[in-house]
């Protein structure tokens, strides 16, 4: 059962009608089959048309879609022998961020990502992908491990942001994020970051300061959520649509601003309509990105990353 977003209502109606017709036709009713085919063509056309002109706010909703593939789906389909590693060796294990060793298309890697969960119980368990300091410190630990053993790091970013709670502040949320960014930037192995859903502020950049930063077609990456921005600048979260547009948070905007290197096309109707195809295209993009960096040695990889972030916005060079 697909969950529909508000702007997908016409699609939902049409698909409902198709489903109804299918159930009505008892045997090989050629007339009904013909009608179903026609309606299916119309539905496909409608999906394409709606998804070709999504507004930034609609893209935000797609990026947060509950059926969108998330970390565990990518692990299952793209990685072999995934061996999860837990804990920050300081305080605990935060499962809002998961990570471990794995084989990716013939090479060993370290893969790290936010996990939002897939049903109510697992969403609560993963704190909706909003990490505490332990999550970022675990990420640092795993990145250091990758660095020591010369393994590429792949990160899958999908978070509304770092968790804003008393315990998180008490244990140094800001410092944990800062150290995670620092760790990304010091690595002498390739770091490929893919924004697969929501790239929420510091909690995202902590895992996304990579050699290649790739976004999904309907993912978002922003300094603040549209709702948060609206409540501060418009003094009402009802202006989230306007804020989403003003913030320039879509993959297409970020490609134009040269903040991301590549945008991965999603299936018609978004990643959640064809998870297998989505995950496969993400795998291909990661593989190509790794290949494009294969000529660089450790020091060059670090310099490559430094130059990338020093020159964003076009003001300073190395």
């Amino acid at each position: 059962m697909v969950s529909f977003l508000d702007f997908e209502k016409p699609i939902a109606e049409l698909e409902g009608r198709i489903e109804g017709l299918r159930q009505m036709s008892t045997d090989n009713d050629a007339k009904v089959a013909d009608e179903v085919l026609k309606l299916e063509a119309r539905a496909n056309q409608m999906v394409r048309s709606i998804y070709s002109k999504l507004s930034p706010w609609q893209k935000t909703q797609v990026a947060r879609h509950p059926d969108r593939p998330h970390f565990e789906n990518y692990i299952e389909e793209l990685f072999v022998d995934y061996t999860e590693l837990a804990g920050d060796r300081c305080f605990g294990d935060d499962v809002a961020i998961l990570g471990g060793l794995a084989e990716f298309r013939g090479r060993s890697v370290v893969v790290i990502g936010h996990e939002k969960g897939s049903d109510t119980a697992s969403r609560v368990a993963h704190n909706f992908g909003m990490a505490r300091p332990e999550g970022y410190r675990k990420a640092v630990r795993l990145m250091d491990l990758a660095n020591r053993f010369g393994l590429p790091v792949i990160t899958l970013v999908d978070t509304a942001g770092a968790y804003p709670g008393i315990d998180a502040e008490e244990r140094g949320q800001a410092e944990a994020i800062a150290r995670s960014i620092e760790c990304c930037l010091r690595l002498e192995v390739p770091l490929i970051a893919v924004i697969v859903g929501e790239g929420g502020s510091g909690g995202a950049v902590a895992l996304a300061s990579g050699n290649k930063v790739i976004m999904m077609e309907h993912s978002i990456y922003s300094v603040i959520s549209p709702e948060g921005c609206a409540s501060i600048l418009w003094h009402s979260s009802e202006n989230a649509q306007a804020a989403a547009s003003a913030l320039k948070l879509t993959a297409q905007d970020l490609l134009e601003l040269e903040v991301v290197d590549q945008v991965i096309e999603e299936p018609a109707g978004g990643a959640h309509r064809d998870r297998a195809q989505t995950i496969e295209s993400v795998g291909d993009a990661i593989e190509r990105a790794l290949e494009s960096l294969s000529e660089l040695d450790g020091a060059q990889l670090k310099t490559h990353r430094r130059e990338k972030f020093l020159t964003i916005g076009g003001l300073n060079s190395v």
Partner: protein
Amino acid sequence: MNWLSNFIRPRIRAVFKKKDSSQDAWLQCPKCNENIFRKDYVEAQRVCPHCDHHGRIGSQERFDALFDNATYTESELPRAPDDPLKFRDKKKYTDRLKEARAKTQKVDAMAVAQGPIGGIETVVAVQDFAFMGGSMGLAIGAAIVVAAKQAIAENAPMVLFSAAGGARMQEGILSLMQMPKTTVAIDMLRDAGLPYIVVLTDPTTGGVTASYAMLGDINMAEPNALIGFAGPRVIENTIGEKLPEGFQRAEYLRDHGMVDMVVHRRALKETLARTLRLLLNRRATDQSEETRESEDNLTASEQSAAS
């Protein structure tokens, strides 16, 4: 008060005459509500004489108080593009910039200067809360890179005073990208083997804390400064309860291991000079002796805040 009166008074007086003559001679402390003679307040680097409340202080006053004999050279900073996203909320970002520039006579929220602190040539970057809440955008990132490069070229340590609510929303993703960018600058300092000391002042939150402000080799904080990642209101809205007294204040961060010390503003120059001297393995000079003497004149409460 010795070094302050000896070295700084003429300069402060000039500032006082130029900018403050039209204002009331008295003002009220926002914390204890006591009346303070404005001239005393400015001379005390905007610390309330009654309750030690540390008011916000601009970059010029900071430089004057920090560098020996108030001698320093301000660095020229690259001019960031205004309004790269054509951002508009209720107001145009370009109008907000115009207002901030008119109010502060500054181009953006960060100033960089170089001069001696206790005889040690130092590059100092100061974030000015008065300019759009000190918020971090392209201009801040560029200024920190300039400061770090200057420190490396001059083989000088770098001291940074942070003060900001966080990233500048009107620069969207480009403001977020200042987190890795400034982190690269700090990393370059480290590779050059140069000290980087952060003084966290009120308030330091959001992406600023979660990047360059928490990455000091040594982190100092001013008394009672609000320091954190998430703002108190965001946390209250998330957890649905009032926050405990003193939460996210400088002393709380020290108690939780996030800053090395809480330093009274009047003891800051001496503390910085001493720390730099020890880190760089230099011995006290006449210049640093003079600042050390000023420490002896601190009141008991100031001493304890500085310890």
